């Protein structure tokens, strides 16, 4: 009995133990759960930390990369900047040198007694002046600020070479030439002084690049500093001569335009009259300059768009410009020539012949000149461009004609064509010879015999003055990918 009781007790005990154990167990599992949850939380945190650190590392790498990248860029930029600064400063020093030399040559000319020596120094001065111009143009200066300085050195270059030619032709420097040179020398002296003073700034770290970031604005300190030279005491001399860059060449006047003023409507009618095959003109603008014109957009019979300028005086067609069509050629050169001559004649230019032509792709360029007394008038040239694909006039320029044309009395002199042919170097095969009036030395027109000669595939034109047989000019025909060129 006892045994049974004991066993029961034991059983109870055991069950209680078990229960305790199970309670313990359940307590344990709850703990575990918490621990596991904690673990989970920790591992999540860890992951985030790892993520963030990777991200930080990546950002760091990228920042370094960026730094290196910009570093390289900056380094390169610095290098280019230095290169540019060096090249500017070198140009500035060239400018100073050539102005110094120029002034010396001019004062030598003024103080030398022989014409031969004057010719030599004048030629050197001309060279120094053009060197100065090249140096000025390569500096970051606003055109508005340096215009007059460039003009002065260019004109000195043209003036001194014209004087040198005068001496070479047996002439002497006149009183007024010497006065002009004196004036030039004074201007150069003050320019020289100021440039040399400016160059001193480089010793104190002056940078042209930094001072001229935006060339055309008021923040271009470099440009303004140099511009102020002209406001201080550089007096710009007036040079009166006919030669390269002289004012008389720039301001040439229109000599050949006469007649009454036409109205816009009359100008439009003239276009329709001159375009025989029909044209549709729309007025677009007016030109107020050397020539005063009414401007029209014109669609011709072949639907080509042209821009046509009609002079207000006389109602003449002055220019036509158009691109010309591509495609198959419909007409040949002779047909084009007839169309051109016909058009020129309709425009009131009589007795003209084609004196030069060149074909570039589908466009034939023709230079047409009138003649008087058997003398071809080169100054009165009219240029016509005919498109071979459409067969229409797509370009016309009569501005030279109307600028230069006057009634001239011309004679052929005593020089016969045959006697001139003998003057041409014997290696040349003579193709053609004719009397021409040719513009020389800017405002001078000279009657010459023009001889076209060929040697080893090269073509030259020789110009002999009919009065004395002197060789006045030689032109060489230069073949290019885009047609021929006279130089």
């Amino acid at each position, binding site marked *: 009995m006892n045994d049974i009781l004991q066993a029961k007790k034991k059983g109870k005990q055991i069950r209680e133990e078990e229960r305790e154990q199970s309670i313990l167990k359940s307590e344990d599992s709850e703990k575990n759960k918490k621990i596991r949850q904690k673990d989970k939380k920790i591992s*999540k945190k860890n*992951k985030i930390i790892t*993520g963030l650190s990777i*991200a930080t590392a990546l*950002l760091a*790498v*990228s*920042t370094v*990369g*960026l730094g290196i*990248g*910009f*570093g*390289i*860029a900056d380094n*390169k*930029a610095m290098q280019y900047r230095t290169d540019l600064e060096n090249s500017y400063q070198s140009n500035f020093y060239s400018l100073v040198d050539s102005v110094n030399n120029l002034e010396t040559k001019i004062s030598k000319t003024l103080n030398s007694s022989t014409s031969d020596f004057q010719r030599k120094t004048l030629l050197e001065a001309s060279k120094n002046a*053009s060197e100065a*111009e*090249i140096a000025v*143009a*390569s*500096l970051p*200066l606003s*055109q*508005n600020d340096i215009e007059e300085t*460039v*003009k002065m050195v260019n*004109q000195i270059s*043209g003036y001194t070479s014209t004087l040198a030619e005068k001496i070479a032709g047996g002439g002497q420097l006149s009183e007024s030439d010497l006065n002009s040179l004196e004036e030039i020398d004074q201007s150069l002296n003050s320019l020289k002084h100021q440039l040399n003073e400016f160059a001193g700034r480089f010793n104190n770290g002056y940078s042209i690049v930094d001072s001229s970031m935006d*060339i*055309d604005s008021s923040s271009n300190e470099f440009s303004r500093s140099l511009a102020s030279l002209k406001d201080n005491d550089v007096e710009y001399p007036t040079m009166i001569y006919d030669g390269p*860059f002289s004012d008389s*060449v*720039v301001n040439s006047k229109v000599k050949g335009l006469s007649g009454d003023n036409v109205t816009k409507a009359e100008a439009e009618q003239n276009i329709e009259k001159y375009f025989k095959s029909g044209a549709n003109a729309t007025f677009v603008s*007016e*030109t*107020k*300059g*050397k*020539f005063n014109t009414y*401007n029209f957009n014109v669609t011709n019979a072949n639907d080509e*768009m042209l*821009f046509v*300028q009609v002079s207000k005086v006389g109602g003449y067609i002055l*220019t036509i410009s158009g*691109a*010309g069509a591509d495609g198959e050629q419909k007409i040949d050169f002779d047909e084009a020539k007839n169309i051109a001559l016909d058009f020129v004649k309709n425009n009131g230019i009589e007795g003209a012949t084609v004196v030069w032509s060149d074909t570039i792709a589908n*466009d034939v*360029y023709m230079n047409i000149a009138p003649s008087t007394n058997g003398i071809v008038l080169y100054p009165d040239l009219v*240029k016509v461009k005919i498109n071979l694909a459409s067969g229409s006039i797509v*370009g016309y*320029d009569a*501005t030279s004609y109307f600028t230069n044309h006057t009634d001239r009395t011309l004679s052929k002199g005593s020089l016969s064509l045959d006697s001139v042919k003998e003057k041409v170097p014997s290696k040349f095969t003579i193709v053609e010879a004719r009397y021409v009036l040719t513009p020389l030395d800017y405002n001078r027109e000279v009657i010459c015999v023009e001889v076209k000669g060929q040697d080893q595939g090269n073509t030259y034109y020789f110009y002999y003055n009919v009065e004395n047989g002197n060789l006045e000019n030689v032109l060489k025909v*230069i073949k*290019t*990918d*885009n047609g021929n*060129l006279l*130089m």
Partner: protein
Amino acid sequence: MKNKLLIMFSFLFALAIMVTGLGVTQATNIISDRYTADAATTTAENRTIQTKLKRWGYYNGNIDGIYGSQTREAVKYFQRKNGLAVDGIVGPNTARALGMTLSSSGSSQSSNDLYLLAKCVYAEARGEPYTGQVAVAAVILNRVENPSFPNTISGVIYQKGAFTAVTDGQINLTPNSTAYKAAQDALNGWDPTYGCIYYYNPATATSSWIWSRQTVVTIGNHVFCL
């Protein structure tokens, strides 16, 4: 959760690469922004090149004057065999080795002027009517003649700050045939502006002094003045 992190990582990674890349391209941009030009040969010259290469066994194609890939490969082969720089282009050195003179090396002076003029016209006025393009070319040529400006076409075009298209590098775009025609017309003496030396677009002009110039004519968007 994992996905989000992955997205975040890849985003950051992409950002990092982008930023690094930006830095490096920034550095190389300046260097690669240079202008390169190919030497060009004419059809007749190409025929000569092909004939010579064929005779010497470098080339098997047709003598057609077209500088195609076959010719280029043959030229490269020839250059490799003759110790020349292998670029597939017949420049002065390769031409000499081939025993020929390129026309472009002899008479290129005027073609260069035309090309330069056409480039400037295209860069400055490609959106303008044809006459407007001729007018821009004429202004450049008028400047060459004018005492207040440099005395060569290149001098005028590359004068500092003279043309915005030169300053910003558009001058190096390849000109189209219209620009060439306009430049050719101007070289032949056409000048619808009668001697103008300036032009500006009233909508975009930034220099105040330009407004004080005497206006001659307006063509397209450009005002031409003296």
